[in-house]
């Protein structure tokens, strides 16, 4: 898509927390109404609704994909609704759908939303779902493979090649949680930021992944209102303009994932998205990286050329990516800081990108925030979608 076609003009979010009393529809009402009000629009201005398909929650998934949301919220002007599922890249695809509707003239204002309630899923169902999701049932699952182990395989190889130490890896958690502790929507808001020693002293789940390097499932949700860039300018409100994007597919099966191809994919998508936006990496105010596990962050920091090869771990350990550091990085603390809301972590990332560009990020507000790099990856990493968002066109 070309430069400056859409903008996020309204955001709404509920804090991530395990709150079984807060139902899916409870969260949908609160986040969607907040986003529409934040955009300064009337509910009947919303002409399209795109939902991130919730993982492991078949009832709400069916209700959304069968078109219940516009009816429930009384969106009388709604012309179409759809759900998107591309795992962690779902939100990117919801925004692309919104972009298409706005381009084609179907809708002038589109509501994009995500909701997840993990706390009411029986533990056995949660384990059964996440044990198999993204794990090949013939060539991986029979060996006892898990998401955590797949992450361990990647991290061990990265440490072998880069020389990144366990202390440096653990410092990523400290960095991410330093942001999360200042985010009212985080699971870890106002909670102590664990030191490197504390991370490393937590139980070893699988080498080199410690318990505090994993993440906790949580309930949450958020919503965004998207309009054309032209309309956003006319609205004269704080907005986040989409300026560039790029994507590469890697593989659907982890054992087939060529690490070199993944690395090149991250480099190329960043370059292409920035070229489309007409900026260079020096212009980026925030690297909002959605990677689900902290162990992937040093690798990606090097691929994005934020840190030189072999130095990213040191950058994290020195606190350069932490709150107050000179390289603002994943300012909601990614999944380890936000709490894992399934595909909602990427949705929360986009809301944060918009929030920072709108100047509404409170204590976490990055000064002079003009351009944000925001990525998303599908499932257990089948692709990488890089986008650049700006304060203005």
């Amino acid at each position, binding site marked *: 898509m070309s430069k400056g076609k859409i903008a996020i003009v309204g955001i709404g979010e509920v804090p991530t927390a395990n709150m079984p009393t807060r139902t899916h529809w409870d969260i949908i009402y609160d986040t969607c109404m907040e986003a529409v009000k934040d955009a300064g629009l009337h509910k009947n201005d919303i002409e399209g609704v795109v939902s991130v398909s919730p993982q492991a929650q078949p009832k709400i998934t069916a209700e959304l994909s069968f078109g219940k949301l516009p009816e429930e919220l009384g969106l009388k002007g709604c012309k179409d609704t759809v759900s998107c599922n591309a795992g962690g890249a779902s939100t990117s695809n919801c925004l692309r759908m919104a972009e298409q509707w706005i381009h084609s003239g179907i809708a002038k204002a589109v509501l994009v939303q995500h909701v997840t309630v993990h706390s009411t899923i*029986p533990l*056995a169902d949660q*384990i*059964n779902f996440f*044990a198999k999701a993204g794990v*090949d*049932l*013939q*060539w*991986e*699952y*029979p*060996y*006892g*493979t*898990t998401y*955590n*182990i797949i*992450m*361990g*395989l*990647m*991290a*061990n*190889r990265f440490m*072998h090649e880069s020389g990144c130490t366990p202390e440096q890896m653990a410092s990523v958690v400290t960095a991410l949680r330093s942001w999360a502790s200042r985010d009212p929507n985080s699971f870890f808001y106002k909670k102590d930021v664990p030191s490197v020693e504390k991370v490393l002293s937590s*139980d*070893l*789940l*699988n*080498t*080199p*992944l410690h*318990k505090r390097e*994993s993440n906790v499932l949580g309930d949450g949700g958020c919503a965004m209102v998207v309009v054309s860039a032209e309309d956003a300018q006319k609205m004269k409100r704080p907005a986040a303009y989409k300026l560039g994007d790029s994507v590469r597919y890697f593989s659907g*099966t*982890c*054992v*087939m994932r060529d690490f070199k191809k993944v690395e090149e994919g991250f480099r190329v998508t960043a370059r292409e998205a920035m070229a489309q936006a007409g900026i260079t990496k020096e212009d980026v105010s925030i690297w909002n990286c959605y990677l689900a596990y902290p162990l992937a962050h040093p690798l990606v920091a090097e691929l994005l050329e934020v840190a030189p090869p072999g130095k990213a771990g040191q950058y994290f350990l020195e606190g350069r990516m932490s709150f107050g550091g000179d390289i603002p990085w994943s300012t909601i603390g990614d999944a380890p800081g936000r709490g894992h809301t399934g595909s909602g972590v990427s949705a929360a990332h986009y809301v944060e990108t918009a929030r920072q560009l709108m100047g509404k990020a409170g204590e976490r507000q990055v000064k002079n925030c003009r351009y944000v790099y925001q990525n998303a990856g599908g499932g257990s990493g089948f692709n990488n979608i890089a986008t650049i968002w700006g304060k203005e066109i």
Partner: protein
Amino acid sequence: MPAAVRDSTISPPSGERRSDMEFDMTKPVPEVQPWSEKFWEGTKEGKLLIQVCKDCKSKIFYPRKYCPECWSGNLDWIEGSGRAKIYSFSTAYSMVEPKFMDELPYTIAYVDLEEGIRMMTRIVDCEPADIAIGMDVEVIFHERGGFYLPYFRPVRQ
């Protein structure tokens, strides 16, 4: 018959709560596709078979219905040497499904076969602390529910 090890009888860990019994404790076997049956038949005979395309000469893993390089259906099998090098590994100590807990700790690895393909597997017959990237390993077959999963162990000097 190949050299093979068998899964021991599986019983729930002691002290397990009744409510946890809803977990499916059946250990999984590969969900076979028609075109991968030959691979699993091979393992029963102690052979690690590799699918090859007779038209473009590609070695194919995992086995497909048609060659993923040229879409030819003219496919065949060769027997691999069973020797490989560890590309990466991760040893699990906890947080696995209940059905695998009796096997902890266990090591999952990517191994690069001499024939140029990469598999996911288990590394067995050695201490986790002795496992390293680049280590030479050889195939050994592990029986589970009538299937023989290719596991790997360090090559004995």
